[in-house]
């Protein structure tokens, strides 16, 4: 009897060790499978591609208002401005097209990406500012202003293309991915919320009047015109405002932690279509 119990205990211990080990192993593909399966199970009525529409995918009343707003979306002005900015030459005569594959058209789905040269994650916003630096131009604000217009235009030229974020076998890429994953699940701020508290556990529920968007595909519609802001904003702008909402001191918009988070979160939405620019409450 005792022997049997001991044996069972040993099996349990072994199991615990195995699962602890599994938690340490960095396996983006397995994570993605589990992540998408979770949301499919939570929202069986929502088609996979519809997750890019955030709260509108899971709430009928909000969807009707959104459809009304999309008849003439308020990001139209930003889109026009972005097209002009994108095609306006720098002082040296070159344009943004010179910095990107396919002249920067239809490439949103490939960002953020791991840059093997520097060993870090490059978001589209960072790539745009690097492009400016390479051409002797000053950096743009990461969160709003001309940056969101340019990103809006670049997203629009990529609409419908499916996110295809790559996490290469490079240990630095895997570390960045894991870092983003840790950020996503870590509680922070005085309210003690993680990204996951709102957008996984409470996804689709009401929080102070708003419907929380599911984390799956949550970045696919960026940049967004947010009624709450009364203006456009990029992914980093949303991250800083999310941080403030849980009473955590926000990081610099181009902080490595945010870029890693965007890397992880966008990767989780691989296969979903680009839907930016978008509108949100």
């Amino acid at each position, binding site marked *: 009897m005792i022997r049997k119990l001991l044996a069972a205990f040993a099996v349990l211990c072994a199991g615990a060790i195995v699962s602890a080990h599994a938690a340490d192993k960095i396996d983006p593909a397995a994570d993605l499978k589990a992540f998408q399966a979770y949301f499919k199970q939570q929202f069986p009525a929502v088609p996979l591609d519809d997750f890019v529409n955030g709260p509108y995918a899971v709430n009928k009343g909000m969807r009707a208002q959104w459809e009304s*707003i999309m*008849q*003439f979306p*308020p990001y*139209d*002005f930003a889109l*026009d*401005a972005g097209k*002009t900015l994108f095609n306006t030459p720098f002082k040296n005569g070159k344009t943004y097209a010179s910095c990107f594959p396919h002249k920067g058209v239809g490439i949103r789905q490939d960002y953020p990406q791991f840059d093997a040269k520097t060993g870090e994650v490059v978001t589209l916003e960072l790539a745009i500012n690097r492009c400016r630096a390479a051409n002797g131009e000053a950096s743009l604000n990461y969160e709003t202003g001309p940056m969101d217009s340019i990103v809006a235009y670049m997203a629009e030229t990529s609409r419908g293309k499916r996110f295809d974020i790559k996490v290469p076998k490079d240990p630095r890429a895997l570390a960045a991915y894991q870092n983003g994953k840790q950020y996503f699940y870590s509680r922070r701020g005085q309210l003690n919320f993680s990204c996951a508290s709102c957008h996984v556990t409470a996804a689709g529920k009401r929080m102070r009047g708003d419907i929380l968007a599911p984390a799956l595909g949550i970045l696919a519609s960026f940049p967004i015109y947010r009624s709450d802001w*009364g203006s456009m904003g990029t992914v980093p702008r949303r991250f800083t405002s999310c941080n403030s909402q849980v009473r955590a001191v926000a990081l610099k918009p181009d902080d490595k932690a945010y870029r890693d988070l965007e890397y992880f979160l966008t990767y989780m939405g691989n296969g979903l279509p680009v839907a930016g620019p978008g509108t949100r409450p």
Partner: protein
Amino acid sequence: MANTIRVRAVANGDSIEVQSLIQHPMDSGFVKDKKGNLIPPHYIEVVTFEHAGKVVFSAFWGPAVSKDPYLKFTFKGGKKGDPLKISWIDNEGQKDSLDGKIL
């Protein structure tokens, strides 16, 4: 400076559906800026739509109309290619207009 007015006027028979979006802060006068000072009211008061010299719709707005205001209405008697002029003026006397065409 780009025009502040976007318009989409689509003919469906002789019925013309007009949608417009105007870039304007529509400050209500009740919102504070980052320093805690009230932003003074600044909003469009009148928008007029003219088709072939005739006013087909006019809007009179107060500060309760949303930022970057949207409007949709339908009038009869127009056709594809007809001119449609939109003009607005706000409470500070700023104004803009656009000569559009029915699609």
